[in-house]
């Protein structure tokens, strides 16, 4: 901590304090710029400019928490990230822009850093400290300053139709066909840059779109993040939905794309019947995938399909959700690349999603899978209690190295409870779940289309079982202006090894284990006063080899399966101040692992970080 404080530039703290003090004096009034309000005949009369600016300052410091380890931690560095979004509405026309900027220092052009680097690494080429990326990233951004117009769109919203030029997302059906990378809750996205037309009438819906894929380049939290190394590739498609009656909905869609460098297309349809006897909803989607082929190739063209079914039964206090899916070569839309935690949407997942946040190598992330899930939910009126149970089974026919190249049969039961309680002036709220997933190995038959080496690897591989025990608890107490919340999540992964494995990390102490599992736990205790001031403490711990961690071998996204990973405990504190509705000040000190954090009544997913970060968010 001492080193951390010494390295913070002296000017930042006074500015932050001054900002805080000045902000506290602001009147509590929502603000906006009303262009041309005083001039009734002006072009911009009645227009609105909405402006949002968020800036982060981060001081990244990797603490040397293992004195026995001779490796020195990566060099510390500063970061400044700014996102400005502006929306100008002129009657039915909207212009939206998002401008992102990122800066980091010191770099190799900085004399003092170059000297320090040379002292540690000798004559080897200088690598800037912000380039401490994990394996898997191909061309990390190493510039010290980036400015990008990340999003820009022009939209005209007519009566019953919309035309948009610029950036937009899209999903058809339940998302099997157009599985563009999009996780809005974690600030990662991949939109299209092109044109989109939507027609919406009472009985008919039509969507036409075309454009180039447009991955977000600068993320507010994840520096140097090229989302999936997807080049700008052409994609065009359309969908028609018809609703002959209020509870019937049929759709057809087709998408052509060049994501793999080979023109491919998919075509599919959906059918939805809602409110059957007021107790049943049914939905089914089926899609065929037709992948392009190299010129002159003698192999059979790759075909695939995706079928998804969901049925929901509402019977008084009980609801029963039944989901089934059958995919074969269903997810070749995205160019193969490094495994990135917290990344992909997985059109329809059968999983309990919080449990897989950091375990995407599990069978749920498969394009070759057949599965079924039942989720009954029971609500007790008298006590306001909700009990949820779920059991999912799946046969995963896709290898997931480095954990397993074998096929797996997965069984995953879990239960959950939600219980609000009123006790006098206090409100208590409990949300908790517990479950266990087991992956049974299934020796695969010889598959066509794989190399002889891969085939031999699979034939020789030990059939390992893997399992995951998980629980989470979210407990909050509110009395008057005070609110306290405790969030605790735990996952225990177990992998059964064929033999006892021994290894000697650089600390020199040999370690042997047959159980090559790991745990991941996150705990957050937060106190909020009047909904405006939040203080939160975090204690996380993991020895997960794939978790994102700055201290985990010095990488954001230590994506290689590495025996030398560091077991790490992360302790941090954050303060959130919302003096007025259009301003938020945020400060974090300490260390945190990647994952979902819910404090101060809002949830977000944070990356691995060690150091100090502050954020100023202004909206007017």
């Amino acid at each position, binding site marked *: 901590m001492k080193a951390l404080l010494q390295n913070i530039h002296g000017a930042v703290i006074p500015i932050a304090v001054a900002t805080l003090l000045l902000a506290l004096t602001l009147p509590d009034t*929502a603000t906006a710029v009303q262009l041309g309000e005083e001039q009734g005949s002006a072009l911009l009369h009645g227009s609105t400019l909405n402006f949002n600016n968020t800036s982060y300052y981060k001081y990244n410091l990797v603490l040397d928490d293992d004195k026995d380890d001779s490796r020195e931690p990566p060099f510390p560095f500063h970061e400044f990230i700014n996102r400005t979004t502006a929306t100008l509405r002129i009657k039915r026309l909207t212009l939206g822009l998002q401008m992102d900027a990122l800066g980091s220092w010191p770099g190799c052009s900085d004399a003092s850093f170059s000297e320090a680097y040379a002292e540690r690494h000798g004559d080897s080429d200088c690598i800037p400290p912000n380039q401490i990326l994990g394996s898997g990233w191909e061309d990390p951004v190493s510039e010290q300053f980036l400015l990008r117009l990340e999003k820009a769109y022009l939209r005209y919203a007519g009566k019953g139709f919309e035309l948009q030029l610029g950036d937009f997302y899209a999903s058809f059906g339940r998302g099997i066909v157009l599985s563009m990378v999009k996780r809005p809750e974690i600030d990662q996205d991949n939109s299209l840059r092109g044109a989109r037309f939507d027609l919406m009438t009472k009985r008919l819906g039509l969507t036409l779109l075309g454009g180039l894929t447009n991955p977000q380049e600068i993320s507010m939290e994840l520096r140097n993040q090229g989302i999936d190394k997807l080049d700008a590739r052409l994609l065009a498609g359309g969908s028609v939905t018809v609703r002959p009656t209020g509870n019937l909905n049929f759709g057809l869609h087709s998408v052509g794309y060049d994501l793999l460098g080979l023109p491919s297309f998919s075509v599919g349809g959906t059918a939805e019947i809602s409110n059957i006897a007021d107790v049943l909803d049914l939905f089914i989607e089926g899609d065929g995938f037709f992948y392009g082929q190299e010129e002159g190739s003698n192999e059979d063209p790759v075909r695939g399909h995706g079928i998804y079914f969901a049925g929901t039964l509402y019977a008084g206090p009980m609801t029963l959700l039944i989901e089934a899916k059958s995919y074969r070569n269903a997810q070749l839309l995205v160019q193969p690349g490094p495994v990135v935690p917290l990344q992909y949407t997985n059109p329809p997942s059968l999983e309990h999603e919080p449990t897989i946040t950091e375990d995407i190598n599990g069978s749920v992330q498969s394009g070759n899978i057949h599965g079924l899930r039942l989720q009954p939910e029971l609500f007790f009126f008298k006590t306001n209690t909700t009990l949820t149970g779920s059991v999912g089974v799946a046969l995963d026919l896709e290898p997931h190295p480095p954990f397993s190249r074998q096929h797996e049969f997965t069984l995953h039961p879990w239960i959950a409870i939600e219980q609000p309680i009123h006790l006098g002036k206090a409100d208590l709220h409990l949300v908790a779940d517990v479950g266990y997933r087991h992956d049974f190995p299934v020796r695969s038959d010889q598959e066509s289309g794989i190399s002889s080496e891969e085939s031999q690897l699979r034939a020789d591989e030990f059939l390992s079982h893997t399992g995951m025990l998980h629980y989470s608890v979210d407990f909050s107490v509110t009395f008057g202006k005070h609110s306290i919340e405790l969030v605790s999540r735990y996952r225990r992964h177990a992998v059964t090894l064929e033999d006892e494995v021994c290894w000697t990390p650089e600390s020199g102490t040999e370690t042997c284990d047959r159980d090559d599992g790991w745990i991941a736990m996150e705990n957050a205790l937060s106190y909020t006063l009047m909904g405006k001031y939040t203080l939160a403490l975090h204690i996380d711990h993991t020895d997960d080899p794939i978790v994102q961690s700055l201290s985990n071998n010095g990488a954001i996204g230590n994506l290689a399966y590495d025996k030398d990973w560091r077991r790490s405990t992360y302790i941090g504190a954050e303060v959130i101040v919302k003096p007025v509705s259009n301003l938020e000040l945020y400060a974090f000190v300490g260390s945190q692992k990647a994952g979902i954090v819910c404090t101060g009544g809002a949830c977000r997913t944070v990356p691995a970080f060690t150091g100090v970060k502050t954020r100023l968010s202004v909206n007017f």
Partner: protein
Amino acid sequence: MRFFLPLIAALSLLSISPPLHAGENAGDFTLPSLSGDNISLSDYLGKKVILVSFFATWCAPCIKEMAKLNDMQKELGDRGLQVLSISVDEARDKAKVKQLIKRMRYTPPVLLDSDSKVVNSYNPRKDMPWTMIIGIDKQIQHKKKGFTEGDEVKIREWVEALLPKAS
């Protein structure tokens, strides 16, 4: 570092700019609802006080807020309040959204923004939950991020101040 100090200072100054006008014009949008109909903001704009709430099934604070909004709609609906809840869940999660709504006996219309069209426009940082209150004058009068128990008191105060006085 010196390069960024002016920028940080400028951003700090932004936060002390005096408020220009109360309110912001609410732009129209149309989204499919959970019940299958298309619903537009303009169906209610200028006729009712509209409380728009963005939520997701994975967001626990959102569900807490929705329980309070459900009560508020029942109590203040006759006086001119219209709650519109917008789910930002992905299309694949529609069944989960409906299951939640049925279980909560949630009565306000629930719109599905699975393409993030509306949330990108109003809440580009996609904070959840995120609430805005639009007056009968079509102006956005309040915006609020997050929800902790007790916040419903403030939200109700904001809404009641915009509603026509009870006779």
